[in-house]
C-alpha cells in the first residue's frame, strides 16, 4: 500500500492556485493539498512551526519562483540545507523561461522545471507520477 503523498503548492498567485485546484478536481486527485503564499510559509508548514500542523512526509512541492518575502530559489536553498527536508521532491512551476533560473534550480536538485502555460499537462503528468512513484519509508 502506497503512502498518501501530500502536495504542497507554494504559489502567491491566487488564480494559479485556483487553476491548480480546478485541475486537481478535474483529474480527481484526492491527495491532501496544502497551499503556501511564499517560501517562508511553505517552510513553516513543512516544519510545523508557528502552531501549524506539521505536514507528514512524503510530500512533493510545486514551487513558484517569483514570490514575495522569500522566493522559490531562496526557499530551495533553505530546504536543501535542512537535514529533515533536503530530500523533498520539488517541481518548479513558474512563468520564467530564463536559463539562469533553470540552471540554478537544477543545481538545487529539483525534479523538474515546468512553465505555467503547460500547467494542464503537468497536472496530468503528476497525477500519474505520484501514483506510480516509490518513496522511501520515512
Amino acid at each position, binding site marked *: 500500500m502506497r503512502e498518501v503523498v501530500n502536495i504542497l503548492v507554494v504559489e502567491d*498567485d491566487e*488564480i*494559479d492556485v485556483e*487553476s491548480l485546484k480546478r485541475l486537481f478536481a478535474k483529474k480527481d486527485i484526492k491527495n491532501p493539498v496544502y497551499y503556501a503564499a511564499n517560501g517562508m510559509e511553505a517552510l513553516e508548514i513543512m516544519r510545523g512551526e508557528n502552531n501549524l500542523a506539521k505536514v507528514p512526509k512524503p510530500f512533493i512541492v510545486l514551487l513558484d519562483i517569483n514570490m514575495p518575502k522569500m522566493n522559490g530559489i531562496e526557499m530551495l536553498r533553505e530546504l536543501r540545507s535542512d537535514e529533515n527536508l533536503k530530500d523533498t521532491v520539488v517541481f518548479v512551476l513558474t512563468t520564467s*523561461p530564463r536559463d539562469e533560473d533553470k540552471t540554478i534550480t537544477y543545481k538545487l536538485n529539483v525534479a523538474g522545471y515546468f512553465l*505555467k*502555460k503547460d500547467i494542464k499537462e503537468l497536472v496530468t503528468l503528476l497525477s500519474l507520477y505520484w501514483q506510480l512513484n516509490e518513496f522511501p519509508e520515512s
Partner: protein
Amino acid sequence: MKNSQLSIRTTLLIIVGVLNLLIAGLVGYQVYKSWDHYQQAQLLKQGSNVIGSFYAASKNLSLARASTLSIMYSTPEVAEPLYQDLLKNRQAVDAALNTAFTGMSANNSVDVSTTSAQVKRKYEILLKRRKQIDAELKAPLQDRNPEITNKFYEENTALITEIQNFILIYSKPFQRIDSAISQHMIFEYFVWELAEYSGEEYAIIGQMLAENKYPNQRQHEQLLSLRGRIEYGWDILRKFSLSQELAEQLFPLMEEASTQYFFTFDQVSEIFYGNQTYGAQASYPITSTLWLGMSGQAVDSLLMLQNEILSEVKRRVDKIEMEAKREIIISGAIFLCALIITIYCWVVIAYRVARPVYAMVNALYKATHENIFEIPTMNYQHEEIAKLAHVLEVFHRNAQKMKDSNDELERFAFIAAHDLKSPLRAVDNISQWLEEDLEDVLPESSKKHLDEMRKRIRLMDKMLDDTLEYARVGAKIESQSNDIVSGRILMEEIIALIDLPPDFKIYTGKNLARFNMQKLPLQQVLFNLVNNAVKHHDKAQALIEVDAVESPTEFMFSVRDDGPGIDPQFHQKIFEMFQTLQPREKSKGRGMGLAMVRKIVIANGGTIKVESALGEGTLFRFTWPK
C-alpha cells in the same frame, strides 16, 4: 592596424619631405645662380681692371712713342724736358703692364694665353729698343741712326696693336656676361683705336716738327692713311648707339675731344697735307714741344672719354656685383627660412600630429575592442587632437550610457513581457472557468464571445513571447555557440524545418554551399527569410534562391523569390515589429520574422536591404561580417 598607421605617418612625412626637397632645390638653385652671378661679377671686375691697366699701358706707350720720336730729332735743350716726360711715361707703361699681368687670373683660354705671351714678347723687344734709344740719345743729333727711331716706332706700334688685339680677345667672355658692358667695351675699344691712330699721327708730325722737315713719301702716305682711319673712327663713334643716359654723359666729352683733335689738326693740316716737296727742309710755325703739348692734350681728351667709359664699366660691374651679393643674401635667407620651416613641419607632423594621432588610434582601438577608453597622454593638451581625445571620451561615455540604456530597455522589455503574461494567463483561466461553471446557463453568443476572447489572449501571449525573444537577441549573440558549418549543411537543415508545398523549390547557390560559416544566429536569419518567402508565396509553383558572395571582411547573402513582391512604400515598414501587410486575422504571420532578422543582422554588424515591387518577386540582401 599598426602598419597602416605607420604608413600614413610615413606618407605624410614623405610628402612634406618631397615638398621640402622641391623648395630646397628651387631655393638652392637660386642661391647657386646668385653665387654664379657673383662669381661672374668678380670675373668682370677683375677683367675690367686688367683691361683698364692695358689701356693705361697703351696710352702711355702712345705718349712715350710721340715723345721719343720728337726727342730723337730735337736738340738737347728741347729734348731734356721731353725726356723727363718720357721717363714718366715709360714708368707708367711698366707699372700698368705689371698690374695687368699680375691681375690676370691663371686659368685663361689658349687664345688669351698665347696673345698675352705675344704682348710680353713684344714688350721685352721694346725694352731692349728703349736701351738702344737711350744710348743713341747720348750721341749728337746728326749722328743718330734714323733706322733705330723707325724700328722703335714700329715696335712700339706693334706692341700697342698687340695689346689692342689682346684686349679684343680677353674681353670677349666678359662681353657675353652683360650686354650693356659689352656695348661699353666695344665703344671703349673704338675710342681707344681713335686715340691710338691720333697718337700715331701726332708722333709722326712731332718728328717732322722736330726735324723741321716735310714728310717723305712714306710718311706722307702713312699720315693720309691715319687721317682716313681717324675720320672714319669719329664717324663710328658719333653713330654708335649708346644708352640715352650714357650718351648724355659722354656727349660733352666727345665734343671736347673732337674739338681738341680738329683744332690741333687745323694748326698743321695745311703744312702736312698740302702740296709740298717730300723730305724738303721746312720751317714750321710751332715747335715740336708746343706740338707735343697740344697733341698730348688732344689725346688726353680722348683718353678722358675713354676713362669715363672705363669708370662707367666699373660702376656697372660694381652694380652687378652688388646685385649678386644681394641676391645671395636674399636667396640664402630664403633657403634658411625654408630649412627652418621644413624642420618645423617635420617636428609638427612627427610630434604634434602623427604621434597624437597614433596614440588616439590606439586609444580608440582599445575602446572598440576592450571597451576601455583612456585619454592618451599628449604633450599638447590644448591642440585639436587632444581636444578630439576629450570629445571622444565624451562620445565613448555617451555610447556606454546608450548601451546601458539599451540594456536597460531590453531588460525592461523582457520583464514587462514576462510580467504581463501572468495576468494574461489569469484572464485566460478565469474565462475558461466562467465557461465551465456557467456552461448550462450561458447563451451560445456569450460562449462564442468567450471563445473569441481566448483567441485574442493566445495571440497576445504569442506576441509577448515574440517581444521576449526580440528583446533577447542582443544578449543571445554573446552566448551563441560558434559551430562552423558549410553553407550546404546550413541550408539543408533549414529546408528540413520548412513545410514545403510540392512544387516549391529552394535552390542553394554554389558559392553559398561552398562557404564555411558560423551557424548561429545566421541560420535563424536565413530560416526566417526562406520561411517568409514560402509562407507568403501566392502561386502553386515557386523558386526560392539563396546564395552568397564573399569579400575579405564579410559575406553578402541574397534570398530571392518569385512571389507576390512588396510594394516599395512598405519596404521600411516590413522590418518593424508586429507590422503585417495583411489584417492581423488574415495574416500568415505576426509581423515578427523580418523585425527579428533585421535586429539579428544589425546586432551582428551587418546591413539588410530589400529590392522588390508588386508582381516582381522579392530580393533580400544582407551582409554578414566574418
